[in-house]
């Protein structure tokens, strides 16, 4: 019988499968690095994994704590600086990058800066980080959304997707032809972008999720792939790798805090400190 998996494992493994051997990948912390680690270990041994801090060609051994975490690997091939990491993206040497999303619109434009009014925010989010430049110049961008929302109009345009759709991104002359978001991965399904209109559509649903539940999240009439199917299930080897590599991500933040705190408490008790 095939192994059962958590939702986080499904998301990580689905993202990892987007990475092809020999590609150059910019990774952010969390899901992307675990996906990159899995890809490099299982199906893309010659992928070059990079972090924007200038850590180039690393093999993660534990999940990094942040994007400058050289403690997460055992050496790497090339130490450069942040400036050069971005200009090499600008010059077209980055195949894939991963970005998290707070708000996304119909054409894959992304907000990670603020919910509500910029000057009087309802919720101030992290901001841009490297996102706008990566979504501008990486050949493909994999977007991930776990707590975010689909909106008709972004409260703030942080990173350019397909702008007004159609050929507007290419026509702007600002971005490499063919670049832009390739996929949006949410807790409910996989979305892709129509080749012509560049409108987002539902491509796959995760097992057990109904299309109606997804429609409810989207404030416009969501297009659905005519060959809509279920997200491919992870293989045992993939699950095993992810579980060993990133156990705390697999259990999720809430459970990790619960178990981690109880472990710290147990240890303190054992030392007679509590």
């Amino acid at each position, binding site marked *: 019988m*095939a*192994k*059962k*998996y*958590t*939702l986080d494992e*499904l998301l990580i493994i689905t993202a990892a499968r987007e990475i*092809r*051997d*020999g590609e*150059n990948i910019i990774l952010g912390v969390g899901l992307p690095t675990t996906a990159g680690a899995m890809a490099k270990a299982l*199906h*893309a*041994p*010659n992928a*070059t994994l990079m972090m924007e801090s200038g*850590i*180039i*060609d690393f093999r993660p*051994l*534990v*999940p990094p704590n942040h994007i400058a975490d*050289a*403690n*997460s690997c*055992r*050496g*790497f*091939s*090339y*130490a*450069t600086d942040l*400036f*050069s990491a971005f*200009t090499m993206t*600008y*010059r077209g*040497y980055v195949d894939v990058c991963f970005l998290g999303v707070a708000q996304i619109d119909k054409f894959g434009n992304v907000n990670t800066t603020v919910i509500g009014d910029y000057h009087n925010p309802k919720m101030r989010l992290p901001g841009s980080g490297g996102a706008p430049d990566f979504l501008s110049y990486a050949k493909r961008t994999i977007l991930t959304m776990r707590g975010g929302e689909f909106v008709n109009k972004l409260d703030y345009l942080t990173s350019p997707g397909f702008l007004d759709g159609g050929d507007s991104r290419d026509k702007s002359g600002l971005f490499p032809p063919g670049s832009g978001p390739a996929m949006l991965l949410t807790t409910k399904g996989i979305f892709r972008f129509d080749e012509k209109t560049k409108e987002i559509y539902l491509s796959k649903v995760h*097992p*057990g999720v109904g299309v109606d539940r997804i429609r409810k999240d989207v404030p416009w009439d969501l297009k659905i792939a005519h060959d809509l199917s279920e997200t491919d*299930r*992870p293989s045992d080897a993939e699950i095993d790798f992810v*579980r*060993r*590599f*990133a*156990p*705390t991500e*697999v*259990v*999720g933040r809430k*459970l*990790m805090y619960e*178990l*981690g705190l109880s*472990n710290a408490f*147990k*240890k303190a008790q054992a030392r007679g400190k509590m």
Partner: protein
Amino acid sequence: MAVIKNKVMTAQEAVSRFVQDGDHLVIGNYTVGTCAALVFEVIRQQRKGLTLYSQSGVFDVEVLVAGGCVDRLVTTYVYRAGGKEGGSAVERAIKAGTLEMEDYTNFQYNARMVAGMHGFSFMQVLEGAMVTDLFKKRSFMGEEKYKVITCPYTGRQILTVPAANPDVCIVHVQRADKFGNAQYWGALGSVASASLASKRIVVSCEEIVEHDIIQSSPHLTLIPGYRVDAVVEAPWGAHPTEVLGYYNLDRMMYAMFFLSDMTGDGLKVWMDEWVYGCTDRHAYLDHYMAKHGAEMLDAIRAKSYFSAPANYGSAYTSCWDNDNLERTMGITLEEMEKILEDRGLLNG
């Protein structure tokens, strides 16, 4: 799975595959560690019509120009053998009308490579040069050699140079791995920018090392493997120039070269012997040792003065400790899987 091409090859194969007639070719090295093995191979394969970039055109430029490979030269410095009575291949070619040359300052030349490396279309340089004839007297680049713009922030007149993105860089380094990660230390000059600005990169090295060596010293890597097309192992590949940690400048050989370079005929004799007369770097070294003795090379071989190692280690390289407990949660994998099951977090 993608087919991963083998990048390790001979100088002959590397030049034949990656240096083409009419290319803009840049010498990655600056003054030291000149990629002599690759330069000689370019000459032996009789590449024609090159636009040659060299930060400081000495040995490399002289032989490439004398070899008839170069139509256009972009540089900052022309060597002159033997003072007033002497000359250089560059001077002879300019006089003969077979070579056009564009003069830049060291900084401007490097700024062109830095702009190219970063994908910018131009770079601001130091405006004092606007009063010089570098600015006024222009060769084949004409209007494109410099442009003056108004700074949008200060309103001042700014001197700019256009980015350079040569077709191919040939460069010699101390060591590289088979993936092309190239490590170079010593005088950094413009090695990184000249290499990274280029569309193709051919690296020759004193030795090909295990990937682990590179991985434990990434601060020494100047060119990342994914940018490199060919890796050539060429011990003594920069001779008669020097490579830090491997050998010194061969003053005897260098002096003989420049004596020969005083005249076109003299240089031709030298090149017949050392470039055309040797099929590759091994033949060159055999010939050198037969003629001058192996002790001449021993005398310039570097003694060791190792850099202090930098510690790239971390506390652990697995989320699981020696008792197979997860480091934060303090449970085994089996216990973790049971908790996931009990909480109903597993699907499928």
